[in-house]
């Protein structure tokens, strides 16, 4: 029997960590980190976990300590946000390239400047090419579920890559909502005992990690790293199927909401997808064939699957809660449209940058996006490909 509860996203994630009971959590326990290490450190103090909690002096050190712990052979987790993730930057690449399956919650918040602590996806979108698997979550339930699945995905022998579980700062992290928790022993059984591959604290098999890699070899190692990211696609689906058997909750590369006969659709991440669902329902009641795609897995990017899911539609709007300053749309748009070039060439695609720095996203505004799509579907004409939503013009 699932345990019904009411929790904020941060509380839910800390509880998932308690149930996973990692060997090491290294974290910077104050701003710009999150409440997650704070809640988790209470579990440590209460003796509810066996975890070694390493309180470090910066986020760079947090990721460095995680790398050291994971390299030693310990199941390692952490959490961060915003500038904290930014300070981890160079170590993110080290963690991924050394194939260290660290699992980290990223509470999505804007990057300064101007100084801002509110929600957008600038932080994790900036880290999208660091070699970490990235899962995105609509609400506290998905943050909890994805964190538990992330451990299995990261540690799978064909993957061995770190995973970021990203959810919206404040909107998800601080709002109290209903949630269904899994019993402790079931989570424990699901994640299983950690059996690290090659690791440093193994006197029977001494190894060296992180050597200098010359041009004759570096490229091959990167190619092999990319292959593990490719393998992750299969593993993510296998773990999702097993998770569905455990909980009844279904996960894939992305959620398709009322897409069956849809003519227009919005592609949007995280909590805004929930708000957009209410708009889809309203439009459907009016007879408009509107749908929604909410990507869950952004790294690896489900190129073929999402491309095919958008084929046959008349118009698609991709919404980005991050500005890439490419002047050619946000990061999600660039990738989705690239996939559409192969699989949905006849579908018109437009981009909306929205919600930066915590600008609230109203259902009325999402309706404007659908209205734009309806006009494109009717006329076949795209007036403007790159757009901003909810900005004062």
């Amino acid at each position: 029997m699932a345990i019904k509860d009411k929790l904020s996203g941060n509380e839910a994630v800390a509880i998932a960590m308690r149930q996973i009971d990692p060997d090491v959590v290294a974290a910077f326990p104050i701003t710009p980190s999150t409440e997650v290490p704070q809640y988790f450190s209470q579990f440590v103090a209460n003796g509810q976990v066996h975890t070694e909690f390493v309180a470090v002096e910066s986020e760079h050190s947090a990721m460095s300590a995680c790398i050291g712990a994971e390299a030693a052979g310990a199941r390692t987790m952490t959490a961060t946000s915003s500038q904290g993730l930014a300070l981890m930057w160079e170590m993110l690449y080290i963690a991924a390239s050394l194939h260290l399956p660290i699992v980290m919650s990223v509470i999505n918040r804007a990057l300064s400047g101007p100084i801002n602590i509110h929600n957008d996806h600038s932080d994790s979108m900036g880290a999208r090419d660091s070699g970490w698997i990235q899962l995105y979550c609509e609400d506290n339930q998905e943050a909890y579920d994805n964190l538990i699945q992330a451990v299995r995905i990261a540690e799978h022998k064909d993957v061995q890559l770190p995973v970021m579980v990203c959810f919206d700062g404040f909107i998800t992290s601080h709002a109290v909502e209903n949630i269904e928790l899994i019993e402790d022993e079931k989570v424990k059984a699901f994640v299983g005992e950690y059996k690290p591959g090659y690791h440093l604290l193994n006197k029977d098999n001494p190894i060296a990690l992180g050597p200098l890699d010359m041009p004759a070899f570096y490229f091959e190692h990167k190619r092999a790293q990319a292959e593990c990211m490719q393998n992750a696609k299969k593993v993510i689906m296998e773990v999702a199927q097993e998770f569905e058997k455990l909980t009844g909750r279904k996960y894939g590369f992305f959620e398709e909401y009322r897409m069956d006969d849809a003519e227009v659709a919005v592609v949007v991440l995280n909590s805004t997808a929930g708000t957009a669902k209410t708009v889809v329902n309203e439009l459907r009641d009016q007879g408009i064939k509107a749908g929604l795609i909410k990507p869950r897995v952004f790294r690896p990017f489900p190129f073929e699957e999402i491309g095919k899911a958008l084929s046959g539609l008349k118009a698609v709007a991709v919404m980005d809660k991050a500005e890439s300053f490419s002047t050619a749309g946000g990061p999600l748009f660039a990738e989705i449209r690239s996939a559409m070039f192969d699989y949905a060439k006849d579908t018109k695609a437009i981009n909306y940058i929205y919600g930066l720095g915590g600008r609230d996203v109203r259902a009325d505004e999402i309706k404007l996006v659908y209205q734009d799509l309806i006009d494109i579907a009717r006329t076949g004409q795209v007036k403007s490909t790159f757009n901003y939503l909810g900005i004062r013009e």
Partner: protein
Amino acid sequence: MGKMVEIRWHGRGGQGAKTASLLLAEAAFDTGKFIQGFPEYGPERMGAPITAYNRISDEKITIHSNIYEPDYVVVVDETLITSVDVLAGLKEGGAVVINSPKDPEELRPLLKGYEGKIYTVDARTISVEELGRYFPNVPMLGAIVKVTNLMDEDIFVDAMEKSFHHKFATKPQVIEGNMRALKRAMQEVKGL
């Protein structure tokens, strides 16, 4: 779609409006509802106007924006009604609950042209008499539950008592006072 009730709280930093919204969410959860309780985060300064929100529904809530067209507005500090547009977007047929010793109709002239329902409760007096200190949030919570009829009153009172036992585990002496303040506010709310 089941009917969803949306409530917006206006208070000042330190008065516990955020806590009240979370307590309301918890109590509604205990009656089997789907709930959201969340504050609007800003610079957190004692005395600065703050906003908090509740959604309560029979079905899963997916909307994640702030609340722009509330069914109810709770004003935890009377002085806010002249400095903040507390009634912005308030639905027709909705209501505002204000912490004030005055009768509802005495406040109407301050609410420029507002024609809807007004309720008041003297949360200051109740709080000071029952708790010995000014914490208006618990009386306001009692008042809004009474006004909205969101849940069975007995279940609500039980849920709050449970909540207080949990919240004040280290200072049980305040539980009784809070319970008295809650029940008194439910009795004394004016405008019903």
